[in-house]
């Protein structure tokens, strides 16, 4: 594989960091200018990330070494296919979220908006860093930055509840952080390197017991952000954050950073071969299957719309991990695709929840009767997103779930096929009643039966992501070449 030294990955990380400084300097006095920085940063970040796609598709790797700490220990950014997938996903959705945030924050006349946009920009820098990290240490550095940057966003409302949610978030994620740190340190001492390698680098370096310990520690460490049960509790609690935060961070950036970490550990640290021989994959697979079903069951019981979405997120994150844990080509491909696809669909759903909240201050599913008449565009997008997550063609959720189902057959584990199917069934069970209520039930007296949408700043982004999930369902390779990138990543890992 050809490696090109390039400053692009660093630029992709830095651009929002610079924007964050500009945002603070501009402050509340010139709100439009401050928002301009956010939008400029998001667009230029996307352009920088997108400019790397051609290189990757040609099978090259972009690399930028920030500094060397010790032999075999670099702070290094390296863009491979899998990292690019995550980078493209996060940077694309940040554009939509930036516009949406402006509508949301101004619509609610929120306080501390400068802090909000500042932290958001830092969080995106960290996400890019995670996506492009070339080794476990670099990944960890950005992972911790992400933790700290999102803490003020979770506690944004500053109500006692929100502060408590912030504490809980920190308690979970910082504990996970030190676990990762210990495991990385041990890995470094065992192998003398932490560089990600498709197919893993740990084989032959450690005893079976040590491998088991490292695997558990790393999966727990990254699994906290990926909200694997039973360490998922922070995520529903964190739904107290403003909706754009839940949308981008708690459906895409933060939780997917966790999933990304788990996948890096499975595929690039341990490697399919090692996991298969040690049988660890099966344990993880059963474990996340439990999460898939459990989270879906819990979602059924939630009346708060955002909490229901949160449990659906937990369910989907576990699906992605299960895909990777099955270790078969189609399953990995499906898992990676689902990472991208789920991002588009789930962000639509969260955007809808936020639009409803801004417009009507409703947060509960039971209050949504007839809302489709007032907000047809919004609820229509919700219907698309809901169908997508369930996995109905021609939406993109279908494609990833199709590969996942194929993958479980390739792995000769029919049990997991049923896990996927049951999960899809449950998805339908907790999403379709919402669609039904909105469009087919008669409005209660507090719902305005006439067209009265939320601000266009919010409606346009949410419709765009809804349309995108439709387009990605019909042309999986459209726009940003997700399908090709994923295929390449799988090829690299499985050495095909």
């Amino acid at each position, binding site marked *: 594989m050809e490696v090109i030294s390039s400053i692009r990955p660093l630029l992709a990380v830095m651009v929002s960091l610079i924007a964050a400084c500009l945002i603070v300097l501009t402050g509340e006095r010139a709100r439009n200018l401050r928002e301009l920085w956010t939008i400029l940063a998001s667009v230029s970040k996307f352009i920088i990330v997108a400019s790397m796609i051609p290189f990757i598709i040609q099978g090259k790797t972009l690399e930028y070494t*920030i*500094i*060397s*700490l*010790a032999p075999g*220990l670099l*702070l290094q950014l390296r863009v491979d296919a899998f990292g690019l997938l995550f980078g493209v996903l996060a940077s694309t959705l940040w554009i939509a979220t930036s516009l949406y945030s402006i509508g949301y924050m101004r619509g*609610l*006349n*929120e*306080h*501390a*908006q400068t802090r909000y946009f500042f932290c958001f920009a830092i969080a995106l820098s960290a996400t890019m860093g995670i996506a492009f990290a070339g080794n476990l*240490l670099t990944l*960890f*550095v950005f992972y*911790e*930055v992400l*933790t*700290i940057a999102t803490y*003020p966003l979770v*506690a944004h*409302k*500053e*109500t*006692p*509840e929100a*502060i408590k949610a*912030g*504490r809980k978030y*920190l308690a979970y994620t*910082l*504990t996970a*952080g*030190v*676990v990762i*740190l*210990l495991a990385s*340190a*041990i890995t*470094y*001492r065992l192998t003398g390197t932490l560089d990600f390698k498709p197919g893993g680098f740990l084989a032959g370096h450690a005893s079976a017991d040590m491998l088991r310990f490292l695997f558990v520690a790393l999966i727990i460490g990254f699994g906290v952000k990926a909200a694997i049960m039973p360490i998922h509790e922070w995520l529903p609690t964190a739904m107290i954050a403003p909706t754009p935060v839940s949308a981008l961070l708690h459906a895409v950036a933060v939780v997917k950073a966790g999933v990304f970490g788990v996948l890096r550990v499975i595929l690039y640290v341990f490697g399919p071969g090692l996991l298969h021989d040690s049988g660890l994959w099966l344990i993880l697979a059963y474990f996340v299957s439990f999460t898939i079903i459990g989270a879906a069951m819990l979602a059924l019981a939630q009346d708060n719309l955002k909490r229901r979405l949160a449990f659906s997120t937990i369910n989907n994150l576990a699906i992605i991990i299960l895909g990777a844990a099955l270790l078969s080509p189609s399953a990995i491909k499906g898992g990676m695709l689902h990472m991208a696809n789920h991002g588009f669909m789930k962000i639509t759903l969260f955007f809808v929840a936020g639009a409803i909240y801004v417009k009507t*201050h409703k947060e509960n599913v039971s209050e949504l009767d007839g809302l489709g008449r007032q907000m047809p565009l919004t609820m229509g997008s919700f219907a698309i997103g809901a169908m997508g997550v369930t996995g109905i063609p021609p939406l993109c959720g279908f494609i990833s779930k199709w590969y996942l189902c194929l993958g479980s057959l390739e792995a000769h584990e029919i049990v997991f096929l049923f896990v996927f199917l049951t999960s899809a069934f449950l998805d339908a069970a907790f999403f379709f009643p919402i669609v039904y209520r909105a469009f087919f039930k008669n409005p209660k007296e507090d719902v305005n039966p006439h067209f009265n949408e939320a601000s266009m700043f919010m409606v346009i982004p949410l419709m765009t992501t809804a349309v995108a999930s439709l387009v990605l369902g019909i042309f999986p390779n459209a726009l940003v070449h997700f399908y090709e990138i994923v295929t390449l990543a799988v090829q690299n890992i499985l050495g095909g």
Partner: protein
Amino acid sequence: MITHAPILIIVTPLISAFFNILIGLWRRWLCYPFVITVLSACVFSSIAILDTVINYGTIHYKLGGWTPPWGIEYVIDHLNAFMAVIVSFISLIVAVYSKRSIEQELSEKIVYFYTIYLLLVTGLLGIIVTGDVFNLYVFLEIASLAGYALIAIGEDRAPLASFEYVIIGTVGACFYLLGVGYLYIVTGSLNMTDLSQLLPNLYHSKVVLVAFAFLMVGVAVKMAFFPLHVWLPDAYTYAPSTVSALVAATMTKVGAYVMIRIMFTLFKPYFSIELLPVTTVLGWIAVVAMMFGCIFAMAQSDLKRMLCYILIAEVGYIVLGVSFANRMGLTGAILHILNDAFMMACLFSVAGAIMYKIGKRDIKDFRHLHRKMPFTMAAFTIAALSVIGIPPTCGFFSKWYLILGAIDAQQWIFAVALMISSLLSAIVFFRVIENTYFEPRVPVHAHNGGTHEEIKMDEAPLSMLIPIFIMVAGILTLGIFSGKIISNVIQFAVPASF
């Protein structure tokens, strides 16, 4: 000039201390620029020394041309040179910072303050450069006496706290001196290099064992190593803000340096590791110190007092690194000396800036402070993240090497202890951060965001902010460049046998 840098670095502040009084009696305002100039000269010579050491190896400077072991010899290797740069640099930064704070807190005593300040720096630098155990004692006493005096001129309860410190500190110094005496009895030498060659034959002598124990206890008192830390919280809390910043950042670190010298230069590493189970004992005590420091810090409502307990925990980190007795652990410990000097100087300076502006130290009074003093609190937050060990701040990198050290030493419990103490310090600091940045609001549906009560920005003066931000810059960059620092300096400071 450069060849005499080792002695100049001590003589300059020493002589200047006396000139400072004369200058001060003539024109009081001249003291500040004078002290800054002198300390800049110290920083310059210490950097020159470090440069020489890096390029040409260890410097042996014979005082007055007397050959050791009869004369006093200054031996400067990578470790001392590194320490000298840290101490002189922090003293300079804190001196820059001191201007407004001293004008407010001690307007009557500015001249005497700076005089003693210079003496303290003399003592600290002397401890670092000397290669003679008795000479080290002399400087230890200079530094300590200057420290007692500086602390005693603080607020109301400072004299009592200082008195407590005098008693315990003197006991510590006596222990050290007794240790030196015992070594002199059996070897007839006071020169460190000479002693390290004479001692191995006597390692089984009871006298040497007792001497070692006395030296260690004496140093442990000076560096406030648990459980000999009791003097520290009171003394550093009630001292003037500037003094707290200086002594917190340097005094304990210099103590740690002396401990490393005694264990690995004066005595051969195999004595401290194999003949006596010192490292094991130290390791366990260090773990207790870390836990104790963090837990007590949680219970404090006074910011400075809280920082004092964090300092005790940080000393624990350094000793823990030393106790691993391997390359990674000691690298972590030495790196942490540097990082912690910056973190502590920054945190105590911030505490001083807050005192200067609002006159309070109680964490409960910090509400909305981020709007009144946004830069100061931003600096506090970054330093706090560094203490917790969040990358890319420097605190993370020393923790990384400490954990590697624990792994190499196969001390899993210590590795876990490092993780736990890092989480405990997160609780300590996020309590303050939460209290400052977030105001508990009643949940309301219709947000009326714009109705934050107007709080005008009222920042600390620039003469405080600039030094604080230099330290913040240090905290943010030292970690990233830790690889360079280790490969150029620290790896040579670690005993070759590791």
